[in-house]
């Protein structure tokens, strides 16, 4: 699968309070959450992000609370993948469980800049710049997790397993 998007680049330790603040959590609506995504770190992101965009970040992306709304808000914005040097444990688990593509890659963090256009190639496991000049490899996702992401998340995966339509 390849799909082009704009790269939104962030640094280290982007915590879940920055991704979606605690004061927005009383409303579970995806579009509400999306309209405040990344508000703690960027006033531009929620306004300008488009379907298919890609987040690239440094180490420990998603640290902090277990709030699943952090992933929901980014999904709601149309973010197709999050690529980080490393992820905080619960965020990574939530992302997989909600069917978000997540990859670890130091290469991508070093090679790409904010505003670059790039395509994600999940079969090759790499991120390619639309200019053609840059390519970064992504760390392989363990098979038991890939199966969940590929089903669209833990709910569709479980429904399939339990034989529920």
């Amino acid at each position, binding site marked *: 699968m390849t799909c082009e998007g704009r790269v939104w680049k962030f640094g280290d*330790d982007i915590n879940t*309070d920055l991704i979606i603040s605690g004061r927005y959590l009383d*409303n*579970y609506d995806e579009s509400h959450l999306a309209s405040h995504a990344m508000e*703690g770190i960027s006033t531009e992101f929620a306004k300008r992000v488009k379907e298919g965009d890609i987040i690239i970040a440094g180490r420990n992306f998603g640290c902090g*609370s277990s709030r699943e709304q952090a992933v929901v808000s980014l999904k709601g914005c149309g973010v197709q993948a999050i690529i980080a040097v490393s992820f905080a*444990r619960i965020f990574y688990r939530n992302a997989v*469980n*909600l069917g978000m593509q997540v990859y670890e890659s130091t290469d991508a963090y070093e090679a790409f800049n904010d505003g670059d256009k790039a395509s994600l190639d999940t079969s090759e496991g790499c991120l390619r710049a639309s200019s053609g000049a840059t390519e970064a490899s992504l760390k392989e996702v363990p098979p038991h997790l890939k199966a969940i992401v590929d089903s669209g998340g833990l709910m569709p995966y479980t429904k399939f397993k339990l034989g529920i339509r």
Partner: protein
Amino acid sequence: MTGKTVAEKILGRAAGDIDSKAGDVIEVFPDVVMSHENTFLVNKAFEELDLEKPWAPEKIVVVLDHRSPANTVQTANAHARIREIVRRMGIGRFYDVGEGICHQLLVEKKLVTPGQLVLGADSHTTTAGAVGAFGAGIGATEMAVVWATGKTWLRVPETIKVTITGHLEKAVFPKDIALYLASKIGSSGANYKCIEFGGIFLFDISISGRMVLCNMAAEMGAKAAIVPADSTFGAWSPECPSKDSSLCTPDSDASYCKAIEIAAEDIPPIVSGPGSVELGGSVEDFAAIEIDQAFIGTCTNGRLEDLIAASWVLKGNKVVEGTRLLVAPASKTVLTDALSMGVIQTIQEAGGTILPPGCGPCLGAHEGVLAPGETCISSGNRNFKGRMGSEDASIYLASPATVAASAIKGRIEDPRRWLKVDL
């Protein structure tokens, strides 16, 4: 065969008595599962699975603590819905508004026992390690699947051994040790790992102090944290450890991915912030910082001994004009005990405001949200930008004694000047 860490033992048992070692991905059957206001989300996903009831309602704990009492109509609606859900599903272990913080209640009400696996839809589920349980946080969707199937997968973590020797100096607390450790290993230094505490120091501290250490492990990225079985939790729960004590004790030849040693007497009162737990240092280095709000509470430091420490600092003193002191007991029991001991009266006489038991302003939803440009010193666990309100506010973390001393001065203050006695 090498010996096992406590994490390897507990997870092996929770997977049906298998031989598990760090790195294995295993299917586990939790003994206790807990969720709070996000039970609303858990249930929403659970309903999609078309099942009438969860696999074992008696293993579920639900607590309304985060935005409690309700801060908005939407929250009130979610609370009402959750009450209806727990009734319908026969979830008996339900704690409504004002009972206290989920992590506090798990331990205080003995809903968790040594050697158990606890999964909570909250990152600070690591706190249960204070009583020898393996507590890990998961998200709401995953919790819904656990409600449906009674199981999930976990990777058995490598363990970092943190050995704490010696004794604390006056006006220094387990929180200072935890903040010091966080500043050393960093906000992701224990990511995906378990922290196992050890050392003679542990004999000095209560279950409450151990909860501080295990709670703060989450801020270092830890999946879980464990204080191995000893006489302290033998006394806490006389019926449990005897049969489970080997489960909650590491083998002498267990293998660790890292070992850290801390000498307790070398640690001064620590302040950490703003913005990251990595920015910790001696309270003296923060002395010039003026504060608007001082907050004592949370699952980290809202227990009786925390309120007592604060009251000893506050006794006979006044919160300085222009600074506000907010105190949220971690549970109704803590509040009741603090009332009967005169601790609440001391705090109020000094000018503090008592909030209802619960998370209070910790997550920036209500009861003490910060304005742009304001500074707060908190006994909580997170000082992230924007955590307690405005993105332009600053948060510093410290022990309850340091927070109380700071409230008296209106700037960050060394508690050693105010707390001259042993607690």
